[in-house]
């Protein structure tokens, strides 16, 4: 299972990656959309956790571009704008929105659910 975390808040994303790895989930980090696309060119990621609002490329633009490269990739959006489904209630969209600050357990649950929706 390959995970990529994309956010312009470097400290935040590094900390998140470390916490995930402590829980047995290895994740790559990218600090911008361009960087994420570069990394995606080399690795087949299963899931991407994207910040909605980043300087340069927004989360949604990145999503479209990533889909071009990796058609099967799943997305989880993280946003400082808060979301309607902060408790993880699935929206009608394919994507899931999570609010900052994140609950690490919610994030992991969501990742697992996105990757293995049948379980």
């Amino acid at each position, binding site marked *: 299972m390959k995970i990529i975390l994309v956010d312009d808040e470097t400290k935040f994303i590094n900390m998140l990656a470390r916490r995930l790895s402590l829980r047995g989930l290895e994740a790559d980090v990218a600090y911008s959309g361009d960087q994420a696309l570069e990394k995606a060119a080399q690795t087949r990621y299963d899931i991407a956790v994207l910040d909605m609002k980043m300087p340069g490329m927004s989360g949604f633009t990145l999503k479209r571009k990533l889909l071009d490269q990796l058609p099967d990739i799943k997305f989880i959006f993280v946003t*400082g704008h808060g979301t309607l*489904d902060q408790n993880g*209630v699935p929206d009608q969209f394919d994507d899931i929105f999570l609010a900052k*600050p994140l609950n690490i357990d919610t994030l992991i649950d969501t990742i697992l659910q996105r990757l293995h929706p049948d379980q």
Partner: protein
Amino acid sequence: MNRQPLIIKNQRWLDFLFHRPNIHLASFQTISNYPRIWIISILILAVTSLSPLVMATFINNRLIHKSVDAELVLQTDRVTSNAKRSMRFFLEERLNALRFIVNELPYYTLIDNEHLAKILGNLKLGFGGFTDLSIIDADGSQIAYAGPFNLEGKNYKTQSWFTQGIEQDSFISEVFTGYRDIPHIIISVRSETAYGRHFLLRATLDTQRLMDMLSSYKTNVHTDIFLLNHSGILQTPSTIFGKVFTTAPITIPAFSDTTQVITPEINKENAYVIGYSYIDTEAVTTPFILMVHKKKSDVMGTWLNLGKTFNWIIGICCLVMMVIITLVSTFMVNQLYLADQAKAETMLKMEQSQQLACIGQLSAGIAHEINNPLALINETAGYLKDLYQYTGEHRSDKEITELLDDILEAVSRCGTITSQLLGFVRQFDVQISSVDVEKMINGILSFHKKETEYKGIHVTTIIAPNVPAIETDRGKLQQILLNLINNAFQAIEANGCLDILVSHLPPKKISIEIKDTGCGIPEENLKRIHEPFFSTKKEKMGTGLGLSITYGLVKKLQGTIRVESSEGIGTIFTVTLPVKMQKEEKA
């Protein structure tokens, strides 16, 4: 529970009298005292429209009464003087005839009964009204008699008429019965024999003749004409006071030989006019007073009835006008009140929404900026905690993990606050899609599964079978239900109940009722629960934004929300939403 709307509907016309004062609205209303305006309006309209009518009626009534009085006096005066003149002439004529006889004929011819009878016959032919004739000498003995009664040889010395008659040249008596028991009048003239002795020529007048003459002046049944003597005893029968010789219960008017009319001031029902005159002939005064009695109400009945009818019509008109004035005033003032009320409501809403928008923009800006550092704190503290838990170092140092938990909890609280603040901004941008309410409710309830089991809360969801899928904004509806259900769970104590009832309100609405058996909301707080930052859950980390956002969202979904609560019993939130939400035109 809430019957107010029904009562208000029944009192639609009198809203301004029975409305419940609302301090929030009152400050936006132009006029504060509607009952006063109502009363003033009725008074002004009534006075301006009714006073001319009332005045005209009053003047008209006075005029009618005055002219009726004047007319009556005139009529009475005319009748009285005419009757008096006839009466006087009647008596004078007969007295003069007697005078002519005693002057023309010598005494010896007069005392001849046969001759006397002839004279009587001639008098009856020439004048009429004579019953008999007699010659009485100075001692009162009747010398000669002609007439139907057998009165020859009678002595009248003791009779009062005789003593009066012998003392004057001419004499007219009152009506009396005398020896013959028939009411009659005596007229007599005194003369002298060749030897210088006085004698009387006495004639008896038939009162019937007199009565016929008087009654010929009775123009109608309401007029009564009769003769009184000076002591008030009736000399001719009266339709009002009765037969001859009864005492009439009226005060004898002061002497006047000309016609007088008096109008006694008594109650209107029996008002009458009296005309009178003392009757005197040239030769002698008579004991008669001619009285004419006219009843006002009867004589002038037509006029007075006309006046009465007029008054009735005016009265009914006034009443109808008063009713119309009252209705019109009530309607106008109520319309004014309703318009004012609507204006005040709109202004209040505008003020509220402006407040909300301001707060929303400000807080959303802050929340967004705070979220990023907050996320960093969260992850850092989380990582620190992870370090302790996963690497095994300092695992025994419970204090540090507890402190880290405190930080994480505080961050989570901040996160709730900021995300709710952001909810304000999210009132724009509506996306309509088909939503299955039942599924959504079950989804939300599934997050509370653990809490339900832990607290032993009995959850019932009743979805009416005819509830259609609705077209609305999924996200917003989700947040509305989430907020309300979260609130309910927070309020419910262990072993409480949560009932969710979804029903279809044909044709175009559905209602979602969320009913808890929680602590309830005190009445003074009920009005404020939709205000931002109003919270009673200080210890339970409430932000005071949940319901405020919910109210805004429901409005955004073109629905309404109502709350009923009894302290200690529970709270019911009822959200009514359109089945098909209309797309908003962008302003």
